[in-house]
């Protein structure tokens, strides 16, 4: 028992992280952590349920493929994690959490001392307590206030203002005044208010960061891998792998079946079928032969082909789309979040009020010390504590509610923009429809089903995969087929119990996708359909209730688009190129509309980036998921409508929270102006307003329920 462990310990173990999106319950965690270490070479497995990841400590000899296969044996699909996906977000979150901890410690201890002062401590005791408070508060403010000071400084340097400017001014002035009071032995120190303010605001920031890391981990779990290299054939016939960026025009590459093209080119030898869904959104595979033009991003389905490259790296059609996406995404970075918009109005008012208070009391002859104290009290009492919490609290609760319904919203700004959309554009393939051909196998007898599965499961062709999936769902056991051959563009042939069997292209060409199953001389046609998502109509109805008109904007052929449009009662534009889609969105925006784009293909990428807000399904291409504001998982389309509905409810709650903050200020500011605000009043007012705002936001927790 001990021997193998000892042997393994001699070699350093490698750690590999895999994303396992299918991890859904305690049983899954238990199964993975219990079963994986039983396999040779695997020392330990640790699941992270929130990020849907498994960290495996294993023998370095074991590759990613072996680990993925091991997880697949347990019933979980897994993918290696890209290195940089954890990145800065979790670092930012940790910094905020640490600052929050320090602020919390400071707040409790300073409050302990403040309560004694409010209860009547005076003379030497009060002075001692003020000094102790200063000793605790100064380092705490210096540490916990950094996120605000840094952000405010950046804004001021660019001659802008944001929420952090009034916060920083308020905190610094309150601290400065309290320090002066402490040194001169005065009665009122506001250390507790300054630290409490930082604590509440940091809580808001930490919530905001938490939301972003949580959903990004989820989206990272969905991202797959793309072919980023090619097999280049040297003149002597040998092949070597070359990274996509090092390819040159004129190179001859060999594209194996199942491989993605890394550059644009022309087929020189071989016939095959290409899956162009990434580029065009077209679901039917495109047959290619010598002379055909092929594009990077297409996946070679059936047989190896030789391709002479014409355009590489930055010149490919794919790179062109990426460039369009980049440019289209620029406009979104100019979007100003609601909190900053509010503070643009808020900050000047507050600062003017404080100045007026100072000037007023000076004129009234109160002396500069009293006047300054009152002016700072105005700043403290109006410091946007509730406002700083108003937006993140509501958005975090809402995004949590949406997450449970299968929609990952990337950040708070996405929720704000989603709420403002007034017209929706849907891609067809993969968005309104499921994006994969589903076979109709009802006409086959059990024997034919077994043969069809035996044939189909060996092929990577989308129709074969769709057929195999449909049969496996029906509980069919595959028949044993010998002598299997796949002829590109023609089909699969094999031998079953001495009879020749085949899955072939149907004899007569028709619009619908179909394949012919031949057993001996008997022929049967199996048709395929790319069905609409079951709740597509219901989703559009909910969107209509919200006052959002929908239409279809597809790159697919006119006939299938028209059929879907008719079934759903929508207007449609077919055969739109990525540029045309982008132009359509720009035109809508020029009319003052705020379009919501829902699409999955790379051809939707520029449109997704340009739209006011965008949503992509979890099956979308990597680039589209990156460009979209939100990603929905599963076969239903309803999360799209829910997202809009919840986003609007969230903004209503945020506005309520703002309204409450304003009401609170209307009550508190006159008190402050009259000089009636003591540190006690400030502390009570601040906590009550923050609690009310958080409680109001919690009402969103059930907002995504039907």
């Amino acid at each position, binding site marked *: 028992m001990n021997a193998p462990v000892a042997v393994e310990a001699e070699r350093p173990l490698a750690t590999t992280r895999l994303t396992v999106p299918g991890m859904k*319950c*305690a*049983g899954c*965690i*238990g199964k993975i952590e*219990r079963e994986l270490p039983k396999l040779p070479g695997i020392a330990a497995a640790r*699941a*992270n*349920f*929130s*990020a849907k990841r498994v960290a495996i400590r294993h023998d370095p000899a074991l590759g990613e493929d072996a680990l993925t296969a091991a997880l697949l044996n347990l019933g979980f699909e897994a993918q290696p994690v890209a290195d940089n996906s954890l990145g800065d977000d979790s670092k930012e979150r*940790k910094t905020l*959490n*640490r600052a929050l*901890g*320090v602020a919390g*410690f400071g707040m*409790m*201890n300073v409050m*302990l001392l403040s309560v004694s002062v409010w209860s009547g401590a005076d003379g030497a*005791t009060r002075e*001692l307590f003020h000094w*102790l408070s200063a000793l*605790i508060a100064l380092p705490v403010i210096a540490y916990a206030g950094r996120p605000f000071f840094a952000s405010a400084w950046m804004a001021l340097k660019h001659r802008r203002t944001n929420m952090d400017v009034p916060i920083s001014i308020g905190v610094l002035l309150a601290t400065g005044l309290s320090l002066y009071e402490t040194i001169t032995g005065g009665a009122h120190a506001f250390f507790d208010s300054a630290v409490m303010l930082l604590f509440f605001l940091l809580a808001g920031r930490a919530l905001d960061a938490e939301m972003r890391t949580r959903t990004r981990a989820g989206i990272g779990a969905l991202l797959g891998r793309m072919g980023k290299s090619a097999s280049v054939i040297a003149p002597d016939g040998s092949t070597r792998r070359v990274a996509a960026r090092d390819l040159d025009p004129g190179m001859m590459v060999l594209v194996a079946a199942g491989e993605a093209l890394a550059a644009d080119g022309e087929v020189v030898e071989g016939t095959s079928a290409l899956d162009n869904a990434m580029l065009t959104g077209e679901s039917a595979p495109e047959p290619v032969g010598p002379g055909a033009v092929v594009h990077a991003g297409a996946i070679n389905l059936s047989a190896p082909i030789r391709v002479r490259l014409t355009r590489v790296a930055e010149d490919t059609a794919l790179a062109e789309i990426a460039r369009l996406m980049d440019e289209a995404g620029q406009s979104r970075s100019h979007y100003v979040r609601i909190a900053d918009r509010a503070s643009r109005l808020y900050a000047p008012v507050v600062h003017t009020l404080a100045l007026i208070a100072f000037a007023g009391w000076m004129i009234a002859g109160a002396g500069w010390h009293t006047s300054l104290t009152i002016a700072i009290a105005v700043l403290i009492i109006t410091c946007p504590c509730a406002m700083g919490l108003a937006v993140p609290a509501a958005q975090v609760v809402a995004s949590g509610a949406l997450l449970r319904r299968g929609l990952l919203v990337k950040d708070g700004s996405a929720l704000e923009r989603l709420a403002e959309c007034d017209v929706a554009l849907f891609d067809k393939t993969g968005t309104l429809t499921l994006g994969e051909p589903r076979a109709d196998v009802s006409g086959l007898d059990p024997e034919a089903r077994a043969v069809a599965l035996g044939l189909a499961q060996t092929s990577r062709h989308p129709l074969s995969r769709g057929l195999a999936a449909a049969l496996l769902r029906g509980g069919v056991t595959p028949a044993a087929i010998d002598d299997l051959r796949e002829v590109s563009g023609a089909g699969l042939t094999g031998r079953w119990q001495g009879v020749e069997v085949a899955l072939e292209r149907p004899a007569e060409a028709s619009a619908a996708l179909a394949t012919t199953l031949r057993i001996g001389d008997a022929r049967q046609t199996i048709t395929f359909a790319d069905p609409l998502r079951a709740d597509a109509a219901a989703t559009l109805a909910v969107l209509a209730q919200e006052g959002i008109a929908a239409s279809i904007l597809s790159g697919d052929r006119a006939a299938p688009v028209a059929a879907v449009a008719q079934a759903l009662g929508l207007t449609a534009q077919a055969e739109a190129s990525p540029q045309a889609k982008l132009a359509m969105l720009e035109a809508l925006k020029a009319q003052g509309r705020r379009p919501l784009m829902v699409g999955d293909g790379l051809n939707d990428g520029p449109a997704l980036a340009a739209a006011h807000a965008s949503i992509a399904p979890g099956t979308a291409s990597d680039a589209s998921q990156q460009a979209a504001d939100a990603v929905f998982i599963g076969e239903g389309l309803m999360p799209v409508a829910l997202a809009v509905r919840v986003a609007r409810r969230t903004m209503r709650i945020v506005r309520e929270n703002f309204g409450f903050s304003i009401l609170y200020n209307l009550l508190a500011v006159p008190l402050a102006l009259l000089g009636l605000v003591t540190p006690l009043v400030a502390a009570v007012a601040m906590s009550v307003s923050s609690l009310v705002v958080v409680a109001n936001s919690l009402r969103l927790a059930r907002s995504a329920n039907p």
Partner: protein
Amino acid sequence: MTGLAILIPIALGMGLLGLAAFFWSMKDGQYDDMDGAAHRILIDEEDEA
């Protein structure tokens, strides 16, 4: 006043202890998988062997 000289350091020390515990737990990765922790309680720890 002598009471204060004892009680205040105790209060501060306990606060610092809490802060240190929070930092340690964060470094230890105890907040990395909050949903997982909720589920782990349901896993049967008994060996099947």
